[in-house]
């Protein structure tokens, strides 16, 4: 029990940068390059944390609060979500609302920190971030709807552990739709292609990278780490839909979980390699598609 808790926190803290490494490796393979080492993200973050900072004169405490609050909020969201077949460290009825709203808190501070610099670029990024969240938020709640309906419970822990009950014949079609919808939400929330391109830094068309344009040194390191952790948390949510099997041996289940996460990261890498980023004004269409998919899943379930 206590060991599972420790493993949970270890994975939550240590694994996120690895996912970035896998994504970049897959992208490099697709492009015919050798690519950076798998652990490059760890090196980057470690180096950034040791470097000095340059802080804009126009900024206030809000600028510093952006990455700090984001990381703390995402970490707390990570304590609410069960990893694999194991229970979440903290679980209560209605924790899914807190889970969604912690991301909202992170968004409030990330965008405020971007506006604090007074740069037009960062203002644009912040405006897009809050706009797209308006569409991804209801989609996320519709995903939860399906789980609530299937499991009859309002806590993430019980909701997500629905296998094998989740695999009654009627639940398969909704779960497929939910998986697609959730994948889109994850790409949008973590600012990956086709919604945003994490590799461009100075283009007018970006969201997350442009908001942290002025953060440097440890602040940038924290922002990158928080983004990776957000990817980890949302991927582990997705993994519950894709991979509900369990062996019964704790160590094997943890391995299955870690393997599943790596597969998801690889899939993101494939998506990023074969797709182009959408035009900014087409992104809402994609998100509305996610809403429709999840809504349709719910309707299939209650029909």
């Amino acid at each position: 029990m206590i060991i599972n808790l420790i493993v949970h926190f270890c994975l939550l803290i240590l694994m996120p940068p690895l996912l970035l490494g896998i994504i970049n490796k897959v992208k490099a393979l697709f492009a015919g390059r050798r690519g950076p080492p798998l652990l490059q993200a760890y090196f980057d973050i470690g180096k950034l944390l040791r470097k000095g900072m340059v802080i804009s004169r126009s900024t206030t405490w809000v600028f510093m609060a952006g990455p700090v609050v984001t990381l703390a909020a995402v970490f707390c969201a990570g304590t609410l979500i069960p990893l694999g077949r194991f229970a979440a460290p903290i679980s209560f009825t209605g924790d899914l609302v807190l889970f969604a709203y912690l991301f909202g808190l992170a968004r409030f501070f990330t965008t405020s920190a971007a506006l604090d610099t007074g740069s037009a670029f960062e203002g644009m990024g912040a405006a897009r971030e809050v706009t797209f969240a308006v569409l991804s938020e209801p989609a996320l709640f519709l995903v939860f709807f399906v789980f609530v309906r299937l499991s009859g419970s309002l806590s993430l822990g019980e909701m997500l552990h629905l296998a094998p009950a989740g695999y009654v014949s009627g639940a398969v079609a909704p779960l497929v739709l939910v998986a697609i919808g959730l994948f889109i939400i994850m790409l949008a929330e973590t600012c990956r292609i086709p919604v945003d391109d994490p590799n461009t830094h100075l283009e007018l068309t970006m969201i997350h990278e442009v908001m942290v344009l002025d953060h440097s040194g440890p602040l940038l390191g924290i922002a990158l780490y928080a983004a990776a952790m957000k990817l980890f948390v949302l991927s582990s949510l997705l993994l519950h839909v894709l991979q509900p099997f369990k062996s019964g041996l704790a160590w094997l289940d943890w391995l299955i979980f870690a393997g599943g996460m790596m597969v998801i990261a690889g899939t993101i890498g494939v998506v990023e390699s074969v797709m182009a980023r959408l035009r900014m004004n087409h992104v809402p269409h994609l998100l509305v598609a996610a809403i429709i998919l999840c809504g349709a899943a719910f309707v299939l379930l209650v029909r």
Partner: protein
Amino acid sequence: MSLALAVTGTLLVVLSGLPGLLLAKWPRTGQVLSAVLCGLGSLVGLAGAFAALSGVGSADLSFPWLAVGGAWLRLDALSAFFLVPIYLVAALGSLYGLGYWPQSRQAGQAVYLQIFWGLLVGGMALLVLARQGMAFLFGWELMALSAFFLVSTDSERIECRNAGWIYLLATHVCTLTLFVLFVYWRSLTGSFEFSAPAAGRLTTLSTGLLFTLCLLGFGMKAGLMPLHFWLPGAHAVAPSHVSAMMSGVLLTMGVYGFLRMVFLLGPLPPVWGGLVLAAGLASALIGIVLAANQSDLKRLLAYSSVENVGIIFSGIGLAMLGRWFGQPRWVLFGLGGALLHVWNHAGFKPLLFFAAGGVLHAAGTRDLDRLGGLAKHMPFSAALFALGAIAACALPPLNGFISEFILYHGFLEALGDGGKLMALVAVPIIAIVGAVAIVAFVKAFGGGFLGLPRSPAAAVAHEAPLAMRLPMAVLAVVCLLIGLFPDLVLPMLERAMLVLSPAVAGRVRADSFLPPFRLRLVVGLFLAISSLMALWLAGRRRQALAAGTWDCGYARPDSRMQYTASSFSQAFSRVFTWLVRVVTKRPAALPVFPLRAAMDSKVPEPVLDGVLYPAAGRVQDRLVRLRRFQHGLIQSYVLYVLVALFILLATLIPFGRIAELLFPRL
């Protein structure tokens, strides 16, 4: 005992305008004495209200009122629950006025403000305590009229006068509707009393009529869409502490009246509960989308009040549906969320209006596109505005989150027991509202306080004086306290809910209603991690280099180049063009040598500018023919009176009898 305290406190507050009036020679002393009296009265009143909320009973206070057959006051937990915000904001607003509207600067107006402030509080307290229609209406009208005088304090400005008139018009429609309501109530039940009518007195039709009158009269006061049209203008131009009182407290008087009357009618058919739920959700969604499109700071806050009222009414709708369908859990979550949100809204919205008043005070404008960078000069107001904004976005760890958590919980539970359709509509809408609230409040906070100043006035802004900062600090503590320790208010919430629905007994404090300990665990973890990181970074910051904002190699970045508040919300409003119309005036295609060009965009108020003004204009055009009767000749006006009198007298002539006399039956 508790009622006596409340009445004493109210009387003290009502009289608090007198020192200012009597000590006209020493204006500052008069104003300070007024504020002290107001604060003292409010403290006494708060003591009474909290006593009632903690279960201290008290005898009714009745006084003879021959015309309507006796009236009485009673302080039950529901009344006490609504009294708390009244007294809280009364005391804080009066203190705030010392710094915001000092007598020395605006001669005469501070006295005027304080007199009507006291009367406003008195009116609200009376209507909350009254247990009889006419006494209620007396308090209601006192509140409505003094609010009118408060809104038009600055009557030299045309926008104040216009907003004041529209408010007066709207509030009279409310009052007339309530007159009809209470008269009809009496004709059905035999008295003006607020007590459940005997079985069989009400038919389906009369219940429906009573409900409709309640929804119109109280809904208009509460600012429920589409009856909200008076609200943004009035909130924007009133002095900021008056806006705070109107937005945080006065609107909820509509909620109080609605709850008090509608729950007397017994379980209502689902069409009415559904209507309340739909109106609430529509107000929440349209209100917050409109808020995100405003660039006037106080108008933005006003529209966000429409949103919050919508959230409250959607909770009431859930409770009403639960009553009809026999689902006590729906009543529990719906009522609990709605009532707690009344308190929470009365905590963060006045805080935001107080901070907005500080901005207005310091930079002389409410236009977010001309503000910016205020956090450097007024760090205290900026920090507290941020806190209020987080609470208003319903984000953890502040109080707004707690009430929305309860509502979410209710709707999600309804998913399991027969409320699928309701939940499918309500939950995504509340989720969208939450996300749009972040757009609106990041816009307000970022546009107003962060970045570089966009006008010379904003560049030299100063921090608000202590008298204005203190009330903000108190409200911030309230927001934090309810957010971190919701278990403190749950017993009081339960007592207030028991007045309306006995079915909730013993359930409010259960862990399945709200798990305060687990919530606090997550929030504590969050605070611990972020403060540890902040400490570490503070050390690193000392060695940091300061430089200009990196603007991609551009040589001379300027404050005019930064994103304005309007541009911030533009991306968002493009997604919502189907809901809200934005009117943009763009310059025509520029010639070879560009001339001076200006671009302007605004969001017309959908009901006032979209429906009422055009309709009023058309009616006026139709009635223009009647003008020939109105030419200013007093003689002919006397003639009209005479003719009218003759016509009325003519009804007394017994034509039938005359005819009988003239033509006796042959």
